[in-house]
């Protein structure tokens, strides 16, 4: 009797493990998903700044003589699950992404899957980048390929039981990764739609400004409502009703805030990592900054 219970339990456990294994297996894009596209470097540069790549892929302090605007990676990024060392995005063939194929790049950025087929920790906001046009992602790749290569070896994250965590991320993707492409709202202006795309795709604003549910997935019903800071300290402000609440006089004022930050007296735009975000946004063409402001100002 007790032996059959043990057997049954073992069977249930084995079945559970098998289900976990299947459900946590990465589901990558395939060659058929790569669009026919001639890369546009200028567009890639704009979206590189909109994506804020440099904020996490900063050069490690150990790399002597590398400007902090070069995404050579390796600087520690502290997260609640452990310390990550975001990788070298320069085209160095050995330590950077010089040897990556377009498909590998698309899978890393839009599906959170490494060239080795492992799930990437979602500190890389592929949950937002997944909504981008693949053509735009390839343009970012072309821009990165145009940068001077830097030797900056990859470093594994300091995370306990990393292989298991990566498998867990695969499971989490069922609730946390929505791969629906961004679509325009025909009832809104062209600028609003451009802003919506920049904010929800490359800009990944919701990764911090939208609170998470118990599964650590973004709570869509509270989009942009603010919440606890993902790095664990302080709070991220709500982006809802910024004009109505008197934080900014109008969308033009908000655009000026995004372009100039605290340097023009717009308070609370420097702390909690927003200083880096604002610096990245300030690199965008004026029309794109206004578009972001038009969209954000419309959030209620």
């Amino acid at each position: 009797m007790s032996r059959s219970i043990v057997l049954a339990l073992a069977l249930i456990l084995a079945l559970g493990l098998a289900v976990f294994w299947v459900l946590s297996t990465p589901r990558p894009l395939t060659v058929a998903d790569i669009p026919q596209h001639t890369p546009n470097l200028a567009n890639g540069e704009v979206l590189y700044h909109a994506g804020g790549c440099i904020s996490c892929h900063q050069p490690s302090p150990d790399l002597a003589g590398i400007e902090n605007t070069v995404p050579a990676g390796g600087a520690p990024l502290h997260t609640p699950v452990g310390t990550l060392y975001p990788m070298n995005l320069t085209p160095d063939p050995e330590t950077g992404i010089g040897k990556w194929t377009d498909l590998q790049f698309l899978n890393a950025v839009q599906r959170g899957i490494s060239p080795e087929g492992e799930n990437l920790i979602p500190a890389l906001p592929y949950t937002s980048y997944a909504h981008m046009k693949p053509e735009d992602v390839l343009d970012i790749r072309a821009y990165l390929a145009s940068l001077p290569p830097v030797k900056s070896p990859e470093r594994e994250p300091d995370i306990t039981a990393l292989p298991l965590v990566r498998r867990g991320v695969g499971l989490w993707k069922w609730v946390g990764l929505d791969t629906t492409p961004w679509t325009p709202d025909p009832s809104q202006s062209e600028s609003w739609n451009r802003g919506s795309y920049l904010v929800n795709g490359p800009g990944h604003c919701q990764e911090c400004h939208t609170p998470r549910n118990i599964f650590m997935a973004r709570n869509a019903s509270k989009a942009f409502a603010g919440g606890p800071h993902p790095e664990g300290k302080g709070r991220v402000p709500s982006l809802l009703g910024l004009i109505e609440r008197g934080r900014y006089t109008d969308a033009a004022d908000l655009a000026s805030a995004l372009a100039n930050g605290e340097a023009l007296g717009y308070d609370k735009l420097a702390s909690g990592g927003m200083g880096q975000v604002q610096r990245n946004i300030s690199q965008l063409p004026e029309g794109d900054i206004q578009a972001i402001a038009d969209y954000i100002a419309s959030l209620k």
Partner: protein
Amino acid sequence: MVSKTVMGLLAAGVLSLGLSSAAMADAKASIEAREACMKANGAMMKVMVPVIKGQNAYDKAANDAAIAAVEAACGGWANWWGEDTKPGGAVKTEAKLEIWSDPKGFEAAGGAYMAALSAVKASADEASFKAAFPALGKSCQGCHEKFRQAD
């Protein structure tokens, strides 16, 4: 005998309560002074930024008054960073622990601000004010980015 011990303990308790509440009052006063200084800086920005944006006319007297208010509110700055004013526990402050873990960085950020403020204060006309202001604005940003907590 027993009552003597109890009395002694009580006395010690009252004394230490008194001491810690005195320290807490000091910490509270320091934090309030820091906040008042920051508010004066905010008020100064509200005077200067509209001139930079071209919304208000240049007004040297208004600038001077705003700078004087900042100097009055911020005079005790160096004395307001006691260990008991660190964030955590009952202490509510937007100051980050980095202020205490990186005192050199904090001093450098303050130094950049002081230098920029002096330059703005010394500017005698609109052109020199507009040339001096950006460094002042950037110094707010530079310090807040590292040393001020998000909300």
